[in-house]
């Protein structure tokens, strides 16, 4: 608007100046088209491709590939939040190579991998900073996501998914075109079954099942909710010369009840993952069962009523097979397979 007006003024005053201006205008005007003709590929960094191309997530990619779900994660009309266990997490539960998935039932595997995905894009800051926020995953299983206020800022808060810790930055809040990905340190085990059925189906827990029946806790494993159960494997009982026969011959009344109900935390209503003690940050935090203080973590510590640790039981109680034994999230609670008994029954005889 202003320019022609100015040029008019100049014309009146000096033709030479006007011509100079035309010349300068012509000389200066070099318009380069900087836009790239090639259409930009909008498909980059889709969730599926990101997992496929990441060496650290190759086992997850293999599981998704086998169930035919990997390409679905490239969808353009949906958003996903993926809790992605890395290869180390799979190795820890005994899955070393992609071929190990071949032996598995594809339908169960599909449910398992879909349980790692929740709809919408959820960054760590979007999660309420409290324990056990329940999110429904695409596989239907509830995910218990805990965020505790520990760390520099809301992005760095300590986070856990059904007992599995989320890595710190930069292995969390990885933005994708159609969602976000957070890397997990272990693999969530979400199984749609009640505790009783799970134990009955597990051939490594037959002696534990027998002990539960003998001590009158078996029915509660189906009805009480929520429960947390610590189940020693068969080999543990056999190490202590407790066989099917000797468990059958137990005279339960001769022992204080805590000798056998410590495994179910006396059927108290708790929903405890193996990292919850660490998340609540209670170094002195214990659950009291008949005077015995139980600190339930990956390594279980039990204090006798006299305050001594490891006094009426072994001092090395942990998860059987490490990550493989921990945090089976079942319909009515959590079950952990453990590698030792919790209390020595013969220390708890009623005299």
């Amino acid at each position: 608007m202003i320019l022609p007006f100015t040029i008019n003024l100049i014309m009146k005053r000096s033709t030479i100046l006007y011509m100079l201006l035309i010349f300068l205008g012509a000389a200066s005007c070099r318009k380069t088209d900087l836009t790239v003709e090639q259409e930009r590929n909008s498909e980059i960094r889709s969730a599926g491709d990101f997992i496929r191309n990441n060496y650290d997530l190759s086992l997850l990619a293999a599981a998704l590939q086998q169930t035919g779900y990997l390409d679905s994660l490239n969808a353009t009309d949906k958003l996903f939040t993926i809790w992605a266990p890395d290869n180390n997490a799979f190795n820890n539960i005994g899955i070393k190579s992609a071929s190990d998935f071949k032996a598995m039932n594809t339908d169960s595997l599909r449910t398992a991998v879909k349980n790692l995905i929740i709809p919408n894009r959820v960054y760590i800051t979007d999660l309420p900073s409290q324990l056990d926020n329940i999110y429904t995953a695409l596989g239907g299983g509830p995910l218990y996501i805990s965020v505790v206020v520990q760390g520099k800022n809301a992005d760095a808060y300590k986070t856990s998914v059904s007992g599995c810790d989320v890595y710190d930055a930069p292995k969390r809040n990885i933005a994708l075109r159609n969602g976000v990905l957070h890397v997990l340190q272990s693999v969530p085990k979400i199984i749609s079954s009640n505790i009783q059925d799970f134990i009955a189906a597990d051939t490594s827990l037959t002696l534990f099942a027998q002990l539960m029946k003998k001590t009158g806790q078996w029915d509660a494993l189906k009805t009480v909710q929520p429960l947390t159960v610590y189940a020693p494997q068969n080999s543990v009982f056999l190490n202590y010369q407790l066989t099917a026969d000797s468990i059958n011959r137990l005279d339960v009344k001769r022992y204080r009840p805590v000798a056998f109900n410590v495994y179910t935390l006396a059927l108290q209503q708790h929903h405890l993952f193996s990292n919850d003690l660490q998340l609540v940050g209670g170094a002195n935090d214990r659950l009291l069962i008949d005077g015995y203080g139980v600190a339930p973590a990956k390594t279980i510590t039990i204090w006798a009523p006299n305050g001594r640790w490891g006094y009426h039981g072994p001092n090395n109680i942990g998860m059987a097979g490490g990550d493989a034994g921990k945090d089976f999230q079942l319909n009515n609670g959590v079950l952990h397979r453990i590698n030792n008994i919790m209390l020595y029954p013969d220390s708890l005889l009623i005299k």
Partner: protein
Amino acid sequence: MAGAVLLLTACRKTDFPEVSSPAYLRVFNCLTYNITIANKDAPQPFLTMLVDPQLDASGAPIGAAITFDFMDVRGELARPYPDAGNTALFQKDFPGTAKIPVGPIVNGYDLSGYGMISSGTHRFMFVTRPRSTQAFYSLSADIRKHILVDTTVRLDQGEVYTMNVLEQSIYTRKTGVYLRQEQFTKLPLSDSLVYVNFYNLSSEGFSDTYNYGALNSWFNRAIRDTMNVYYSLFATNRRSINGYRNVFTSKLIRSQDPVVHPYSSFPLFPDTTASHIYAGTTGQVLTFLLPGVPPETPFGNNQESYGLFTSLAIGPEAPIGVFNTMADINSGLVISIRSGKYNPRSFATVNTVEYVNGNLYITTLQRRYDPPIYN
């Protein structure tokens, strides 16, 4: 012409909310976080306050006359002026940082830390909500139904109220509302004395149950249900002022009965050698002791006394106490600020100290003072 257009577009219209026949209200959430493995799934003390809520057929709140969201536990110091310059989302009290009409100056007391609410009978509802930044009404209906307190209170016109959300008993874990009708606007309080009154609003059974070990190994946080309170005053360089060492103030008895406790006072200018315009940097220590324990007893802050002793240190010149409020000269029990031709000039305040379940909270109220004159 262009100027006129600019003038028209530049006009920012602010709607100032009007509250007819108001009462003045300040609300604190005195609950505390205590997450253990046994209670980890229980609702947290992160609240939404609803005044006169509307509920849908299923009982979930869908609206309210006042919705005060993101109400976190209260801070150690409730300031005498509104926090509206702050944009923090999580609130430490009502009115907090929310854009809520606040009180005027009533009988020389600045009520700008109190929200205005129409007088009359109101239904108050406190709902526990997830500790997130998601607004209350965008939460799913079943989450909005976690109603912690639902009560009806009457607020009279022109009266000043303090409302606390308290745990009533550690045996029942029942939570309730405590509404105290403040009296300070009606009392003849001298402007050369600093006033403090004390309340122990702990739950029934707290002092019998909780101790050093149960409070995350913090020393001297749990006190007995009956205590004596003494004060000591300090001047520049933490100099103890003669005549103001361990002066008996009042007896503190645990009670959730909402009556105003009597105010105790100390002089605004205790130091006879100082000017009587500016009190200098000051400090106050309030010592809480079991009756019978002499106030000279040298308790250590970091040595557990099992409920016999605790202390509250306020201001830059106070020696370190068990609880410390790091006030500067503009805040604390003595407020020094530019006023009239003086820079600074010291003013006395009216304060309330509340002990609730292992925490000490101060609420400060300032008086009206003259605006500064710049020469």
